[in-house]
């Protein structure tokens, strides 16, 4: 057998083919992060950004970089990262490239949870109750959807159920806004829901980050399970994968990540769909090796989108959620078109 190994040394070693993918993406994210600190009404050079970060430059630059742009850049990276990871995990779990948190109605449901808290003024908009409520909303939607999906539901069923949940959450959100005691607060919420990273402070970062980090921790451990699921649920279970635990981790992880993000940035869709799609060919479609690249691609995407909204001239800054949807939705349509034959079949 050793002669066989010697004869085909390439066979099982191609896993190193994408060696540069992760370092490359990390470099890209860092570059975009720094760029994000420099872009805005006051353009700052890389040197000025560095000075501002270190506090060695003038006071104005320090304020702009640290107080205004740093929270926004951190949130873009963190939220993008977690959405990319959540998309990769959901796609791995459901064995389908069309799965993503938005498809599950998770952001809308999370937004409803958050709105409920703000609209009725139960808690301060900057308290930890906000992400908790958002997380519970997302948990409800993702849990409900996986329950409906069961082990063998077709993707069509999942999409329809996701649509229903999204609509329901949207309607419930409108209702909450209508019934809110303070209409001005309600209007603000409605605007905030469109998904933006504008004017976020470090306080937002501190509120969202623990949830996002916990979500990412839960989402990143099941690569081997997702790889095994290539063979279907029965075969994966027979390989020793505890599918119930995997499902639970993914549901909780997605809920935490989406909840944390929505609580401070509103609904930002399609990053979880697009990011895994972009990097999948580079990892030879392996759902396990997809995880980190998808997360990094998500971070790069959202940071880039957030830079874009500051470059595009407009009366009011364009919402970053609008940009991601404008990019993501057409891609989603293309993907649906490409998979339309599979859509009528079974996922399992």
């Amino acid at each position, binding site marked *: *057998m*050793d002669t*066989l*190994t010697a004869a*085909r040394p390439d*066979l*099982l070693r*191609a*896993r190193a083919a994408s060696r540069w993918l992760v370092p490359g993406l990390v470099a890209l994210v860092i570059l975009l992060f720094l760029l994000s600190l420099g872009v805005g009404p006051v353009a700052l050079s890389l040197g000025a950004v560095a000075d501002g970060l270190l506090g060695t430059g003038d006071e104005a630059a320090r304020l702009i970089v640290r107080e205004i742009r740093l929270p926004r850049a951190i949130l873009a990276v963190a939220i993008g990262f977690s959405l990319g990871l959540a998309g990769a995990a959901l796609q791995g779990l459901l*064995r*389908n490239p069309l799965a993503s948190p938005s498809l599950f109605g998770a952001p809308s449901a999370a937004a409803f949870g958050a709105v409920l808290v703000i609209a009725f003024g139960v808690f301060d908009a900057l308290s930890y109750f906000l992400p908790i409520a958002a997380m519970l909303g997302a948990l409800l939607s993702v849990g409900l959807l996986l329950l409906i999906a069961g082990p063998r539901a077709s993707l069509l069923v999942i999409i329809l159920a996701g649509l229903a949940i999204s609509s329901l959450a949207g309607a419930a959100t409108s209702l909450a806004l209508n019934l809110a005691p303070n209409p001005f607060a309600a209007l603000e919420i409605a605007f905030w829901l469109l998904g933006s990273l504008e004017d976020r402070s470090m306080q937002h970062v501190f509120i969202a980050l623990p949830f996002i980090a916990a979500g990412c921790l839960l989402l990143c451990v099941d*690569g*081997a399970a997702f*790889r*095994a*699921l*290539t*063979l*279907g649920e*029965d*075969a994966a*279970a*027979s*390989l*020793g*994968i*505890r599918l119930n635990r995997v499902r639970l981790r993914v549901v909780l992880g997605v809920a935490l990540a989406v909840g944390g993000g929505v609580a401070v940035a509103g609904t930002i869709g399609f990053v979880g769909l697009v990011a895994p799609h972009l990097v999948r060919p580079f990892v*030879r*479609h*392996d*759902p*396990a*090796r997809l995880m980190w690249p998808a997360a990094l691609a998500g971070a790069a995407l959202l940071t880039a989108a957030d830079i874009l909204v500051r470059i595009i001239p407009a009366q009011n800054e364009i919402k970053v959620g609008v940009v991601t949807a404008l990019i993501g939705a057409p891609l989603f349509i293309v993907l649906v078109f490409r998979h339309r034959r599979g859509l009528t079949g079974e996922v399992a």
Partner: protein
Amino acid sequence: MAALLRAEGVGATLGRRTILSSVDLGVSAGEMVVVIGPNGAGKTTLVRRLAGLLPGDGAVLIGGQRSETVSPRLRARKIGYLPQGHVFHWPLSVADVVALGRIPHGAGAAELGSEDRVAVLAALEATGTLDLADRTVTTLSGGERARVALARVLAGEPQIILADEPVAALDARYQFVVLDLLRARAKAGAAIVAVLHDLSLAARYGDRVVLMNDGRIAAEGAPAAVLTHENLAATFGIRATIETLEGRLVVTPQAAL
């Protein structure tokens, strides 16, 4: 010989319907048991129950130990389960798919160890899929996919192999190739359970044949004892010619009764 895998009074229900009831079956090392039966007889359910994938009445014992008390990982090392259909959800390379069989041995996300590689290559070679190793699995023909699916199971080097319709999509030659492979594993000391539809193949390859009907074992024993006119009429509802050609039992279904 003590059974490597034993089912004692095993049952399973789907909703309120009983699919499997009080099945007793033991499979020893070195033995190939072929399960046959009409559609809906409970063959797949029995195999899934044996694989520990379904809850239900009774007990499944792996090497004398109750299946539920064996950790999933250890169970996965002992039992290789080949589901029917041979579906692959991602366009992985054949080598990567076969390497999935090493997951119970700890080759989850990390690089394959040298033992893993040897096992994967051996499985590829045994199933004649070494030349396909670089191919994308979703572009293979049905017969090629079936062999890759089997290679995945063999790569785990399980003592017990449960194969649900392993030759369903295969041409005549590869039906022999795959079943010869399973028999060779049995000769090497493994315990094999294979669900087959072809009655002559069942007669040819089964050390024992288990005839299922309505969720129960209707008959069990040597092929010639199970594949009788009466049994086939009572379970499959067919009339068949049963003859011995070139020293082998050949069952040719002739008509529905």
